[in-house]
Structures are given as C-alpha cells and as structure tokens.
C-alpha cells in the first residue's frame, strides 16, 4: 500500500503547553485510523496541523510524499484533505445548502451549478435535505455535527479527518453513521477519526493510535491496543466521561 499521509516528528506548543510533542505516524491509502486520548491530549491540535489551520513548531507533514507543512489550508483542501471541526464551525448565516455548496465549489474549482447535484445528494445522505434552506446557525448541535460531515464530504476528500462526530448520538444513529463511513471507505477514502465513543470507532478503523499529553502512547491493531496496559491506564480516564 502506498503511504498517503505522513506526520514526521511534529510538535506544536502554545506558550508553555506542548499540545503535540514530537509525534510521528503514517496513514496508507484507503486506510482508516482511529485516534484516542484523554481530554487535552492534543488530538484536535493534530488535526489543525494536518489541515493547515495552524503551523507546527517543528516537524514535517507530507501528503503523497509531497511536503505540505507550510501550505495554507485552502490548498490542502484542494489536494484532498477534508475535515470536520469538533466544535462545529458552520457558516452560520448561510443556508445549510450554501454551506455545502461553498465546500463543493471551492474545493474543486467548479462553478456553482455544476455542484448542485452533488450537494443535494450529500445533504440527502447526511439527513439534512429537509433543512437545506435553514440558516445554519438555527440548527441543533447534532444537526450542526451532521453539517460538519456533509461539508467535509462535499470537498470530495481523499483524506477525511473526523473530530468527534459520534458524541450524543443514539444507538441507531451511531449505526447509521458507521454505515455512512464504511460506505465511504468502500469508495477508497482514507480516514483519520478522533472519537471518544470507542465502540463506534472500533466498528470502522483498521488501526488505533493513542496519544497522551501530546505524545505517542501506543499504536496498532485496535483490540491489541485497547488491551495494552499503558492504554488501559489512560483509557479509564476516557471511559469515565
């Protein structure tokens, strides 16, 4: 398998806080990687570094061998990195449809009307079609999370970064989400998924990476990682939420 993403000895400090500390990992094309770690472990910061929302203090990030460490986020999007935000960042005064439309159009460079079909289809998949004319800031938190997913999908990513989209879902909704993501995997999309709802994560990912205090803690086959003693120790903290 060809390597899609490599994160090489990446660090990011906010003042005295080392949010990500000398972290390295790779992702193969078509692979799904789950990321676990307690609150404040640096998971979302890692996503911000990969998507280009922030720049690392040290280290390199490559996509298909090409170094992207210092590319602005819009270029990374056009190279195929799509993401959702843990705290939803809808374009609040735009309609739900326009949120998805902006993503579809600017990620691909296509004109608006060439993207309409794709947008309608994605909104249908995300269960937001009946809300497509609503201003995004009138959505509930769960609907906003769906919009995060829909907007990321509209960029037609080859690498999809998902940051805690399953929290607060019912059992049935979790099941639907798993199906949506697995279907996506079937189309060749690679996924990195941060999720505290472990059983949802385990239903999708090939591999787990656990980080703690910004540092690498464990990595490997999901069940083996969950059984790891060091992980068990911090995992207590995760489950206690």
């Amino acid at each position, binding site marked *: 398998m060809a390597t899609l993403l490599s994160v090489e000895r990446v660090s990011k400090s906010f003042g005295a806080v080392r949010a990500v500390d000398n972290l390295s990992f790779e992702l193969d094309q078509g692979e799904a990687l789950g990321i676990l770690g307690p609150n404040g472990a640096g998971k979302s910061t890692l996503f911000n570094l990969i*998507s*280009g*929302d922030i720049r690392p203090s040290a280290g390199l990030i490559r996509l298909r061998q090409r170094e992207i460490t210092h590319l*602005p*986020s*819009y270029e990374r*999007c*056009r190279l195929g990195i*799509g*993401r959702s*935000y843990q705290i939803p*960042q*809808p*374009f*609040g*005064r*735009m*309609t739900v*449809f*326009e*949120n998805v*439309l*902006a*993503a579809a*159009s*600017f*990620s*691909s460079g296509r*004109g*608006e*009307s060439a993207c*309409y079909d794709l947008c*309608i*289809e994605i909104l*249908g*998949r995300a269960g937001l*079609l009946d809300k*497509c*004319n609503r201003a*995004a800031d009138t959505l509930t938190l769960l609907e906003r999370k769906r919009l995060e997913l829909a*907007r*990321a999908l*509209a*960029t037609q990513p080859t690498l999809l970064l998902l940051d805690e989209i399953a929290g607060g879902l019912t059992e049935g909704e979790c099941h639907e989400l798993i199906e949506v993501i697995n279907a996506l995997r079937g189309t060749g999309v690679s996924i990195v998924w941060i999720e505290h709802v472990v059983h949802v994560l385990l239903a999708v990912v090939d591999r787990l990476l656990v980080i703690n205090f910004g540092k690498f803690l464990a990595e490997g086959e999901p069940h083996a990682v969950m059984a790891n003693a060091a992980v068990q120790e911090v995992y207590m903290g995760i489950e206690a939420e």
Partner: protein
Amino acid sequence: MIIGSYRVERSTRASRAGFAAMLAVIVALISVPAWAGRAEMRLLIEVSYYLALAQAWNLLAGYAGLVSVGQQAFVGLGCYGFIIATAFLQIPPLVAIPLTVVAVGLIAIPTAFLAFRLRGAHFAIGTWVLAEVLRLIFTLVQAFGAGTGMSLPIHVVLDISENRVIRELILYYVSVAIGIATVLLVFLWLRSREGLALTAIRDSEAASGSVGINQQRTKLTVYLIAALIAGLVGALVVLEKLRITPDAAFSVTDWSANVIFIVIIGGIGSVEGPIVGTLVFFVLRSLLADYGAWYLITLGAIAIIVMLKAPRGVWGLIGSRYDVHLFPVQRRVRLNLD
C-alpha cells in the same frame, strides 16, 4: 436515497418587492433636480458618498474581518490625486476622476502588503497610523498649501461646465450614480460565487479555508476595492467642497468614525445594513445639528447601545424578525417538484 427533481432559486417575494422599491427610489433620485433645491441636492451628494464608504467598510469589516480605521488614507489620496491631476497636470476633471481612482488603487497595493502582516487590533491601528502618516506628509508639501490646504483652481471648476446649474447637475448625478453603483456592485458580488466565499469568511474564517476558499486572495480583493471606492469618494469631495486641507482630506472622524457608526447602527454584514445606517445617520445629524458636542456624544451613546442590544444593528432586528432580504443573495432549494 431517491431524490426528486429540484430547483435552486435566487429571489423571494420580499426581495422582488424590495427590488421594485429600489427601482422606485432610483427613479425618485433621478427626478430630484427637477423639484428639489440646491441644499437637498448637496445633502444627497453627501448621502451618496457616505453610502459608498459604508458599503466599502462593511465589506472590509463585516465580511473580510478587516477592521480598518484608516479608510481616510484613501479618501485623502483621492482628494489630492484629483487636485494633482486637474490643477497640476491639467487633466479634464471628468477624466481625472477615473485616473485618480486607478492611482489610489496602485498605491493601495503596497499598503496591503504592510497592513496584511497585522491581525485584529494591530491591523486597525496599523491602518490608522498609515493614514496619519499620509496626512502629516501632505501638511509638509508647500505646493498643496501645506497645512492650510488649497482651493481647486477656478478653471478646473469651469472646465466641467461654465454654467453653475449644469455643474451642480453633473456633480449630483455622478455622486448618486456612484452611490447606487456601489450598492449594486456589492449586491452582485455577494450574489456571485465569490460572494459565497466572502460570506463564508464572514461566518467562519477557519472553516472557509478548510473547504478550499483562498481567504487571503478574497481579503486582498476586498481591501483594494474598498480603497478604490474611498479614492473615488475623495475626488468627489474635492469637487463638492472646492477646497482641500490635509485635516479634512485625511479626517478620521469624517471618513472612519462616521462610517463605522453608520455600519454598526444599520447592521454589519449585510447589503441592507449600510443603507439603513446611512439613513439613520443623516436623520440623526439633521435632528441634532444644533447641539454641538452633544451631537457626537449622542451618536456615541447610540452606537454603544446598539452594539450591546442589537449587535446586528437596525437591519438585523428587522431582517431576522421577518426573514426579509431586500437583496436576494441567498439560494433557496425547491425540492420534489414532480
């Protein structure tokens, strides 16, 4: 999932009504010289350029997140550019106006690279400092009368037309056309694909990048267009006042404070807001004209109350309560047509 046919629509009943109302206003403005006096025409000239400046500042601060306190830099450059072109280079005034605008745009490009290194409050202060520096430079230039300024030579005025009435008509129509054109430009911009980018940046700058929107390019475009509009207003100001001083040309009160007031009161981040704000501003000004310092204190107090109680201004209150959009920039999806 099976999706029936759908259609994406761009206008609503309210917006069609709004558009009809706008057309009526435009017709009324065209007819003004036929029935109104000089004072009313002068007032409408001022209204027009404040409307243009307010639309420009709204694009900057309300959409691109560029809170500038330095638009007077470009108004001032427009004033002096027009003086240089007409009084010194002997270019006919109506040709000098577009030339001035181009020149202001060229000067704005390097300032953008300076200002864009600054963020948030630093950007605001940086733009202000830039304008102050320019003002100080012009107080030193003897050829322009230094600090006391200079008058537009009479031959320039006569060059527009020997006849005062015709002159005033031309100035009136040019000003009103520029006010209307600015509103139209902003509307068409927001309605276009680029408007989608601009609106996305307004609502979440981080997320706009993550969906492929080049924020820097969009912001730079806004900055330059806003500078061009300010330069244009500057040229008109000279034509109307017929004299210029560095303090008036680069006035932070006139070209920033008043304009910011207008946008905040009317409603930041919409096309309608600056229009409403301009009307409110001129009504307040005429009501409070005789109260000197109290005028400014009242304006300040109103601005603070609006910021606290209605962060989206007067238009925000109306627009969100009744979901009306006079300018149809949104896209509405009609599903399952069959």
